[in-house]
């Protein structure tokens, strides 16, 4: 019981912006709107919204590794792709009966995490850091993209699942929850929406607790000064590896959800553009804060899509302008900058009132 209380106390802390009744009141309102939203919308639009939510997990993975941990990984898409393909291969082979898609969901994320254990071990214990870490991770994701792109021939299959080269895999079953009577199939509409929303809220809160725990303290300490952190007795490479693996699992969640959502996955999901986009969302939002990352990602994605209607060239220009503005106005992120400003304003107002 006391353990539970101290766990919930960690929802707030120095590592996360937002505290007190005002913040959690807002959180509750946003959540309520999120829950009620499908009631006022049609299935197609709701399915589209799920698509936005899907990307938030990979953004959070970058927030964790880069924003909190200080290691810029340029290749979170590698884990996205591995988990996405993993889900495809597993479900195309074993189908969706008996809740197998849920097992595949977890297994695919575990595969991505195991890959991160291997890669992370070589990087962190081989003392690859800074810009080299970015280069290695980028190289890995581009290599995976190239590799998958040349698997068009019929000889490239795992069990009954053809890899299909550049065109990617498709027709894997959506997530399916076994249910007495009839299983619940989470097509890309209301059902999947609630599943992903629930997962998002859970992951967001869990990460808040993690980052405000003593583990989170060590992670930011390593970002601030790795030498000092080690000289406080922390085995920093172990902490970096664990963070990297958690990050890979988060990117993996995005990968599986994306694959289950659209029932396809292609090598380009691990390509250059795919790798660069999450960096922009996270940088614009505020890489060193979970809430800023979530809000920033959703806002930028929505704006990007709205602009795409007028032509994708405008959307890309917009992204570029946004990134430049961020670097100039609020290098720590536009959303984070705005939240800090609001926080100071609120503090000044309450001071004046009190």
């Amino acid at each position, binding site marked *: 019981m006391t353990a539970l209380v101290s766990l919930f106390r960690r929802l707030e802390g120095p590592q996360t912006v937002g505290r007190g009744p005002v913040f959690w009141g807002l959180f509750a309102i946003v959540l309520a709107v999120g829950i009620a939203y499908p009631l006022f919308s049609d299935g197609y639009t709701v399915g589209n919204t799920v698509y936005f939510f899907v990307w938030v997990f990979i953004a959070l993975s970058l927030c964790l590794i880069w924003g909190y941990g200080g290691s810029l990984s340029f290749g979170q898409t590698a884990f996205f792709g591995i988990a996405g393909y993993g889900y495809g291969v597993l479900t195309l082979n074993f189908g969706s009966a008996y809740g197998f898609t849920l097992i595949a969901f977890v297994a695919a994320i575990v595969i991505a995490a195991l890959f991160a254990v291997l890669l992370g071990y070589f990087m962190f214990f081989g003392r690859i850091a800074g810009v080299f870490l970015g280069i290695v991770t980028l190289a890995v994701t581009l290599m995976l993209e190239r590799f998958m792109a040349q698997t068009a021939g019929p000889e490239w299959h795992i069990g009954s699942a053809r890899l299909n080269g550049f065109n990617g895999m498709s027709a894997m079953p959506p997530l399916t929850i076994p249910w007495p009577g009839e299983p619940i199939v989470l097509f890309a509409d209301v059902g999947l929406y609630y599943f992903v929303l629930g997962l998002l809220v859970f992951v967001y809160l869990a990460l808040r607790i993690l980052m405000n725990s003593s583990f989170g303290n*060590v992670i*930011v300490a390593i970002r*601030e000064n790795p030498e000092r952190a080690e000289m406080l007795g922390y*085995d920093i490479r172990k902490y970096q590896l664990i963070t990297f693996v958690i990050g890979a699992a988060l990117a993996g969640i995005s990968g599986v959800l994306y694959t289950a959502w659209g029932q396809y996955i292609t090598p380009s999901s691990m390509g250059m553009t795919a790798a660069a986009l999450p960096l922009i969302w996270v940088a614009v939002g505020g890489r060193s804060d979970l809430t800023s990352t979530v809000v920033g990602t959703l806002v930028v994605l929505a704006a990007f899509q709205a602009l795409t209607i007028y032509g994708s060239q405008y959307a890309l220009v917009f992204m570029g302008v946004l990134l430049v503005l961020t670097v100039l106005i609020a290098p720590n992120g536009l959303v984070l900058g705005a939240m800090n400003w609001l926080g100071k304003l609120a503090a000044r107002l309450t001071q004046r009132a009190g």
Partner: protein
Amino acid sequence: MSLLELRKLNKHFGGLHVTNSVDLTLQPGEIHCLIGPNGAGKSTLFRLILGEHHPGSGEILFAGENITSLKSFARIHRGLSVKFQVPGVFKGLSVRQNLEIALQSRHRGAELEAEIDRLLAFLGLGSEQAQTAGNLSHGQKQWLEIGMAISLKPRLLLLDEPTAGMSPEETHLTGEMVQRLNAEGMTVLAIEHDMTFVRQVAQRVTVLHLGQVFAQGSIDEIVADERVAAIYLGQAHA
């Protein structure tokens, strides 16, 4: 048994013989000062003791155990701790959080908060606790890092120029801090250029010159040693 024993320690940086067959023994409970001109190899010796550099040859014994090939964090667990020459605080975090990170592996919950308060008081940083560490004055950063280093209740505290950037009053306060820690049983090895500080705290002094132990003795013996004066003067003329 001695607490720290360096045996014939050698370290080269390319052609530079920066640590030249150094023998040094620290007795438990002493305050030992390491002095020497700029570039003598003092900080490098610390990095060897801490495992950030590895010696080309020689051995490092801590409380009788050969720690020469241990990783840095493992040496910290054995009871070593350090304040670096350039203060290594977590610049972007608050003073309080800096200390929390240092103390959290030994204390939790309400006890942790109480320990942080106690340490803030000891360091005289109570009113700075909410400050971002990067905004502290140089002297305050030194104190903060000393605070982080002693959080671990080390058996041997290594201080690399703890009073650099401090006023004479602050230097004196730091000396008192070191003496209080020593009275509680902490062994201290301090690199220092400020001779007033050395005179205040040192029970024994070792002079390092060109990577070699040049002289050793009480502060009075060292000050009286004309050869020591000569190497400092030689540097001043250079």
